[in-house]
C-alpha cells in the first residue's frame, strides 16, 4: 500500500530516468554526474563493463549447490530461522501531491484510452493507471478492432514498458552518447542533404498507418525529393496486397463481416488470431455461434467453418472441417473450388479430386453455392497472390462482396511491395549509394531475408541511425542508436484494420528517455525542438472540426477513436490483367525438386521476434504445441516416422545455401512433408530474457520464397531439450471436453425447450444439477456428501466457460498474469512443472481414425481453459492443516497467503491441478522498475506460498464496496474478471448464480452446461458449455467420439429418472 503520488503526471520528469538520459532537460545540479558519466562512457573499460554486466551472466542460473555450500546455507538459515519473525517493519512514508491533479483520487485507478500497435495496426485499449503508473491494459469497447477485447500481445506490452533491458541511452558506435550530440551530428548532415535534394537519404520503416508520421514523412520527401522511403515488415501483407492488385488492378484492403457469414472457407488464413482485426473477427464469428448455441430451437442460424492449411492454426483448431494440405497445393485446391462453383475463367481448373478430397470439395461447393451472399472465402498472408485472387473471384461470383466482404481504401499510408522495397534498399546499400540511412523501428539485420545479406551491406552505409526499443542486432551494427519510447510513453497515432484512427497518448513520461519516430523525423526536417505532443496535436487540431477550440481533440483522446476516420468503401471491378492469373499461380515454384516444404509462420507468442525479451510471452505456452521458451520445427507424425526423428531431435534445415539447426516437434494435424518454422527466435541481442533461445528461422528465409520454401531436412545425432506445459498437467482418459453435434443438439434441445418436458419431468435433473449450485437444483442425481450444504443468501459467484467460443488465443492467460502479479519462472522451472499461471488452457485432440496416422493426421482440437473451479465441496479446504484455504459466504474458495505454510496438501488433493506453489522466490523483488508494474490491489506472493485463481476477488471487492456504499446489490456484469474482460469471443462469463436474471445463470441452465469431473462430487462453481461442432451432413458421417458422449449424457438424463 505504498503510495507515491510523485509519479502521477505523464509529463512530469520520469522518476526512474537515470540522470544521464534526460539530456535535453538536464538540471544544472546533475551536470557533474553527467560529465563524469560521459567521460566514463568514453573508456573501453566502461564499455566492456556495460556490455558484460547484463547479458552474459544474468541469464545464467547455476544451480550448483555443493555439500559445503548447502551446509553453510542451512546453518545460516537455522540461525536466522527464529529471528525472521522479529524484524520490525521499516517506517514507510506517505508522499502527497504538491498540487493535486484533476480527477485523481488517491488509491483509485484512472483509465486512459490509447492504442497498442502490432505490425503498424492499432488495437484500441484502455490503460489502468494507479497514481500515474500504468499497470494493466483492457480493451476499448468503442474501438472497432477491440470491442473491449485484447490479445496476449497487448496484455503483455505493459511488461515491455517496464522492461529493465530496454535501451536506456543514445549510443554512438557502441558508446554512450547524448541526444544533443546526435542532433548536432544530424544538423551537420542537413546542409549537404539539402544541396543534393536529399539524394542518399533513405528511410526504412515498418508498415506505417500513423497519419501524423505519414504526413511528416511526406513533407520530408517534399523537402528532399531525391530521398527514398522504404518499408519492411517481416510478416507483412505483401501477398494480400499483391492478390488484390492482381484481381482488381488497384490497392484495396479487405474488411470482413463474419457476423454475416454462414459458410466460411479459409485458405490458410488464421483470421481468428493472426490477422489485423482478428480480435474483431473472432468476436463477430463467434457471435453467430453463441447466439445459435444459447437459443437452441429458436431457429438462429449456425455458421460452418472450413479450413485448408498446411500447419495447424487456431482457426484450424476451431474448424468444423479441416484439411491439412501442404502450402504449395492450396492454390490448386482453391482453383478446384472455383471450378466447382462455376466461377468464370476457372473451368476445369485445379487438381483432380478423388476420395476424401472429392467429398470435401463437393461439400464446400454445395455450402458456398447454397449460401450466396452469406459465404466468405479468404486467403492468408502466407499464400501466394494467386490464391488471394481466386478468393476474390469466388467472393465476387457468389455475391458476397458488399455483404461478408467489403473492399476499402488501403489503411496503410503508402502501400508498397515491401519485399521489393527492402531489396531495392539493399541494392543501393551494396552500391554505396546510401549516405544516410534512418531506420525507424524494426530490426532488419535480424529479420531481413537471409539472401539479402543486410548486415554485410549495412557496413557500406556512410551513416546509419537506428531508432529502437532495444539495443538489438541492428543497433549494434548502426552508427547511432536512439532508444525508442514505448507506445505507452509516447504521443502518436495509428489506424485500425478498418481505418479508424486512434490518438496514442502517454501514460507515463519516458522511463528511459526514449524518443519517438515523430521526433526523429522532425529532427531530420530541421525541427528538432518539436516534441511529439506538438507534432501530433497540431496534425489533428488542423483536421478536427469543433465548436470550441480543442473540444474535438479532447473528445478524440477521451474516446480513443477519431470519429469519421474509417476507410471508405471502394467499388472494385474484377479485372485481372490477361494471363497474369496463371503466372501468379506459377510463382513460388522456386526450389522445385527439394524434398520438403518449409512454411514460415509468426510465432504465436513472440510474433516476429519483437517480443523476445518479454518474459510473460516467452513463458506463455504456444496454444497448440504448449512449448514455452523455445520454438521448434513442426512436422507431422508420418513425416517424423519416415525420417526416423522424434521430439527434441535436432535436424538441419536447408533452403538453398542457407541452413539452420532446429529441434523437431511432432505436430498433430500437420500436413505431411511440410516443416513449419516459427519465426522470432534465435535472437542474439535483445536482453536478459530473450537471448539465445530457440533457433533463427530468418536464417533460412529467402526473399523469393518468404512464406513457403522448398528445402531439405537432414538428421543430426544431437538433441535439444524443449519444455512443454501440457505433459505434466495431463488429465488423460477422462470425460473432460464434451462435444455435441449442432444438428442433434438443436433437435433435442428444441424439444426440451418448453420447461424440459421431453426430459420426462425431471426438471431438476437438468443443467442446474451439473452446475452444482443450490441444494434444490440437484434433483435426479443428488450428490452424496458428508459435508453440510452451505446456504447462500446473497451473491453466489460462478463462472461459465463456453468451449464453442474459446479459440485458445491465450489472451486470458496473460491478462490473468498481469492482473494478479503472477511471476514467470524460467525454462528450467517450467521443465519441472513449476509454472505459475493461475489460468491455463488445456489442449486436447480427438482423432478421426483408429490408427496412429488417423489420430494424429488430422485430429479435432479442443481448448479448455482451466482455473480454480471454486468447488462447493472443495477437496483442498479439508486437508489444509492451518486453514489457509477456506470457504467464504459467497461460495469463493479463499486462499490466504499469510496463513499458508506451504504443506502443498491442498494441491495434492485438487483434482483439477489448478493450484500453484512458489517453490522458489519467483517474484523479482530487487528490480526497482518492476515494482511499478505490480497491481497494488493484489498481494505479491513470496517463496513457500500456495496460490491459485481467486475469481479476481479484488474486482469483486471493489464492486461490492461500490454497491454497498449505494445500498444496492451488485449488478450483473459489474464484476468482470480479468480473463473475461480480455476474451475476444466472450467465452468466459462470470456473475451471480443466485440472481435469476444474470447471464451466467442463463448459461448454466443450458443443456450444454456440464461440470468437470462431476462424479467426484466437488460441485464446481466453474462449469463448461460443451463444444458444438457444425458438421456437413455428408462429411460428418464419421462419428466424433465426443459427440456420442455428449449425446449419451443427454440420453442418460432423459431416461435416468
Amino acid at each position: 500500500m505504498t503510495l507515491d503520488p510523485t509519479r502521477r503526471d505523464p509529463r512530469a520528469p520520469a522518476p526512474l530516468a537515470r540522470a544521464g538520459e534526460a539530456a535535453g532537460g538536464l538540471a544544472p545540479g546533475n551536470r557533474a554526474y553527467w560529465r563524469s558519466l560521459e567521460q566514463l562512457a568514453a573508456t573501453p573499460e566502461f564499455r566492456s563493463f556495460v556490455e558484460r554486466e547484463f547479458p552474459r551472466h544474468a541469464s545464467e542460473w547455476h544451480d550448483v549447490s555443493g555439500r559445503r555450500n548447502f551446509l553453510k546455507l542451512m546453518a545460516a538459515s537455522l540461525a536466522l530461522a527464529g529471528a525472521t519473525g522479529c524484524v520490525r517493519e521499516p517506517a514507510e512514508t506517505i508522499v502527497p501531491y504538491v498540487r493535486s491533479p484533476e480527477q485523481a483520487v488517491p488509491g483509485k485507478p484512472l483509465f486512459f484510452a490509447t492504442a497498442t500497435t502490432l505490425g503498424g495496426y492499432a488495437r484500441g485499449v484502455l490503460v489502468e493507471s494507479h497514481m500515474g503508473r500504468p499497470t494493466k491494459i483492457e480493451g476499448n469497447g468503442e474501438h472497432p478492432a477491440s470491442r473491449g477485447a485484447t490479445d496476449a500481445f497487448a496484455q503483455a506490452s505493459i511488461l515491455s514498458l517496464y522492461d529493465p533491458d530496454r535501451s536506456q541511452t543514445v549510443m554512438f558506435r557502441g558508446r554512450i552518447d547524448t541526444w544533443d550530440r546526435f542532433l548536432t551530428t544530424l544538423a551537420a548532415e542537413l546542409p549537404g542533404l539539402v544541396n543534393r535534394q536529399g539524394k542518399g537519404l533513405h528511410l526504412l520503416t515498418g508498415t506505417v498507418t500513423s497519419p501524423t508520421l505519414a504526413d511528416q514523412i511526406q513533407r520530408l520527401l517534399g523537402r528532399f525529393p531525391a530521398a527514398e522511403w522504404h518499408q519492411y515488415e517481416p510478416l507483412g501483407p505483401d501477398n494480400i496486397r499483391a492478390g488484390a492488385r492482381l484481381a482488381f488492378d488497384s490497392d484495396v484492403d479487405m474488411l470482413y463481416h463474419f457476423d454475416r457469414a454462414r459458410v466460411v472457407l479459409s485458405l490458410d488464413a488464421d483470421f481468428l488470431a493472426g490477422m489485423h482485426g482478428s480480435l474483431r473477427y473472432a468476436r463477430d464469428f463467434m457471435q453467430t455461434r453463441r447466439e445459435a448455441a444459447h437459443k437452441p430451437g429458436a431457429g438462429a442460424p449456425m455458421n460452418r467453418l472450413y479450413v485448408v492449411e498446411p500447419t495447424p492454426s487456431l482457426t484450424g483448431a476451431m474448424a468444423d472441417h479441416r484439411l491439412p494440405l501442404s502450402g504449395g497445393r492450396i492454390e490448386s485446391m482453391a482453383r478446384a473450388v472455383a471450378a466447382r462453383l462455376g466461377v468464370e475463367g476457372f473451368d476445369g481448373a485445379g487438381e483432380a479430386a478423388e476420395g476424401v478430397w472429392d467429398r470435401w470439395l463437393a461439400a464446400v461447393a454445395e455450402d458456398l453455392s447454397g449460401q450466396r451472399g452469406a459465404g466468405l472465402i479468404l486467403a492468408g498472408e502466407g499464400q501466394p497472390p494467386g490464391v488471394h485472387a481466386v478468393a476474390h473471384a469466388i467472393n465476387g461470383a457468389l455475391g458476397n462482396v458488399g455483404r461478408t466482404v467489403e473492399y476499402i481504401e488501403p489503411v496503410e499510408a503508402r502501400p508498397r511491395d515491401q519485399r521489393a522495397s527492402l531489396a531495392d534498399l539493399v541494392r543501393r546499400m551494396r552500391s554505396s549509394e546510401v549516405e544516410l540511412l534512418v531506420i525507424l523501428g524494426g530490426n532488419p539485420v535480424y529479420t531481413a531475408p537471409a539472401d539479402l545479406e543486410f548486415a554485410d551491406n549495412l557496413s557500406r552505409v556512410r551513416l546509419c541511425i537506428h531508432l529502437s526499443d532495444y539495443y538489438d542486432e541492428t543497433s549494434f551494427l548502426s552508427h547511432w542508436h536512439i532508444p525508442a519510447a514505448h507506445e505507452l510513453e509516447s504521443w502518436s497515432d495509428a489506424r485500425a484494420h478498418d481505418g479508424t484512427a486512434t490518438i496514442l497518448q502517454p501514460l507515463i513520461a519516458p522511463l528511459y528517455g526514449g524518443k519517438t519516430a515523430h521526433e526523429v523525423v522532425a529532427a531530420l526536417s530541421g525541427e528538432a525542438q518539436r516534441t511529439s505532443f506538438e507534432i501530433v496535436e497540431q496534425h489533428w487540431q488542423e483536421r478536427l472540426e469543433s465548436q470550441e477550440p480543442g473540444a474535438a481533440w479532447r473528445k478524440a483522446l477521451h474516446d480513443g477513436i477519431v470519429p469519421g476516420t474509417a476507410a471508405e468503401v471502394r467499388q472494385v471491378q474484377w479485372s485481372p490483367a490477361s494471363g497474369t492469373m496463371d503466372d501468379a499461380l506459377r510463382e513460388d515454384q522456386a526450389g522445385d525438386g527439394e524434398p520438403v516444404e518449409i512454411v514460415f509462420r509468426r510465432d504465436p507468442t513472440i510474433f516476429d521476434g519483437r517480443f523476445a525479451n518479454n518474459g510473460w510471452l516467452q513463458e506463455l505456452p504456444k496454444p497448440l504445441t504448449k512449448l514455452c521458451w523455445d520454438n521448434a520445427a513442426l512436422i507431422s507424425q508420418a513425416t517424423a516416422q519416415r525420417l526416423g526423428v522424434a521430439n527434441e531431435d535436432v535436424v538441419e534445415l536447408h533452403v538453398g545455401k542457407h541452413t539452420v539447426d532446429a529441434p523437431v516437434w511432432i505436430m498433430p494435424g500437420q500436413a505431411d512433408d511440410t516443416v513449419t518454422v516459427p519465426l522470432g527466435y534465435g535472437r542474439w541481442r535483445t536482453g536478459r530474457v530473450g537471448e539465445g533461445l530457440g533457433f533463427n528461422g530468418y536464417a533460412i528465409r529467402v526473399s523469393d520464397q518468404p512464406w513457403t520454401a522448398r528445402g531439405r531436412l537432414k538428421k543430426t545425432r544431437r538433441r535439444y531439450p524443449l519444455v512443454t506445459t501440457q505433459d505434466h498437467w495431463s488429465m488423460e482418459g477422462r470425460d473432460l471436453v464434451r462435444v455435441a453435434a449442432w444438428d442433434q443438439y438443436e433437435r433435442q434441445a428444441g424439444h426440451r425447450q418448453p420447461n424440459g418436458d421431453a426430459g420426462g419431468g425431471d426438471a431438476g435433473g437438468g443443467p442446474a444439477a451439473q452446475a452444482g449450485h443450490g441444494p434444490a437444483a440437484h434433483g435426479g442425481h443428488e450428490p452424496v456428501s458428508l459435508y453440510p450444504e452451505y446456504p447462500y443468501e446473497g451473491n453466489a459467484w460462478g463462472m461459465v466457460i463456453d468451449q464453442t467460443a474459446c479459440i485458445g488465443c491465450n489472451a486470458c492467460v496473460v491478462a490473468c498474469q498481469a492482473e494478479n502479479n503472477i511471476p514467470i519462472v524460467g525454462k528450467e522451472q517450467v521443465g519441472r512443472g513449476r509454472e505459475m499461471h493461475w489460468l491455463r488452457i488445456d489442449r486436447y485432440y480427438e482423432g478421426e481414425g483408429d490408427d496412429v496416422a488417423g489420430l494424429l493426421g488430422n485430429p479435432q482440437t479442443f481448448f479448455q481453459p482451466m482455473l480454480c473451479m471454486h468447488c462447493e465441496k472443495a477437496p483442498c479446504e479439508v486437508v489444509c492443516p492451518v486453514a489457509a484455504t477456506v470457504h467464504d459466504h459467497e461460495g469463493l474458495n479463499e486462499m490466504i497467503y499469510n496463513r499458508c505454510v506451504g504443506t502443498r496438501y491442498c494441491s495434492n488433493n485438487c483434482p483439477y491441478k489448478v493450484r500453484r506453489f512458489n517453490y522458489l522466490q519467483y517474484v523479482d523483488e530487487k528490480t526497482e522498475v518492476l515494482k511499478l508494474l505490480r497491481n497494488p490491489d493484489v498481494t505479491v506472493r513470496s517463496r513457500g506460498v500456495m496460490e491459485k485463481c481467486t475469481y479476481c476477488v479484488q474486482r469483486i471487492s471493489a464492486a461490492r464496496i461500490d454497491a454497498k456504499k449505494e445500498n444496492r446489490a451488485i449488478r450483473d456484469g459489474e464484476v468482470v474478471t480479468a480473463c473475461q474482460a480480455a476474451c475476444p469471443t466472450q467465452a468466459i462469463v462470470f456473475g451471480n448464480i443466485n440472481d435469476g436474471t444474470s447471464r451466467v445463470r442463463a448459461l448454466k441452465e443450458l443443456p450444454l452446461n456440464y461440470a468437470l469431473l462431476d462424479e467426484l462430487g466437488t460441485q464446481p462453481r466453474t462449469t463448461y458449455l460443451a463444444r458444438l461442432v457444425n458438421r456437413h451432413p455428408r462429411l460428418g458421417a464419421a462419428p466424433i467420439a465426443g459427440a456420442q458422449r455428449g449425446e449419451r449424457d443427454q440420453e442418460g438424463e432423459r431416461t435416468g429418472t
Partner: protein
Amino acid sequence: MAQLFHPSTNTFSKATIFGGVFILAALAWLWSVGIRSPYATGVDVVRDQPVPFSHDHHVRGLGIDCRYCHTSVEKSAFAGMPASEVCMGCHSQIWADSPLLAPVRESFRTGRPLAWTRVHDLPDFVYFNHGIHVAKGIGCESCHGRVDQMPLMRKAASLHMEWCLDCHRQPQTFVRPLDQIYHFGGQPHADGDDLVRQFGIKKEQLSDCWICHR
C-alpha cells in the same frame, strides 16, 4: 564408584521438570504481553514528521472537518493526505512566516512533495478501505482515537488482527449514525443492531478472510 550427583539434586531436577511448565507458560505470557506492548505495536508513539502538525489545534481548536484535508476518505481505500497547496491555502496568509512551516513553503515553491512518516501502517497483505468504513457507520474515532486531542499524531490502537476482528465480529457495538462519523467524543450508539440492519451490514461476511486479505 561414587555417586556423581548428590541426592539433593533430585529435588532440583524435579523442580526443573515441573517448573518448566510454568516457565514456558510465563514465557508465553511475556510474549503475548510483548507483542501487545507499545514497543511492538507503536501505540502512543509519536513519530518524527517534517512538520509538527497538530490535529488538536486544527480539529478541536479551529473546527476543521477531517475531510478538508483527507479528501478521499469517502471515495477511496486511502483517506488521502493533503497536497501542499491545501496547507498553503491558509498558510499563505496565516503564520505565513512561521519557521515551523518552512518545509511546506519549500515544497510548494520547489514542487518537491513533503514526505510524512506513516503512523498507521498495516501489513501489505491487508487491504483496508476507508470508504466503506465511513459509509457504514464507523467513525474516525473508532480506530484513530481522540485525534482532536492529539497535538502530535500517534496510533491509538494496535491495528492487530484481533483488534480488527473485535469490530468485524460485533459491528453493532461500534457503529454510529452517519452524522456522527467525523465527530469526536460521542457516546456509543444505543441501537447498534438497528444501525447494522439499516446499513445492510452482513455480519457473517465480515469475518471472511477475503474481506481484508487477497
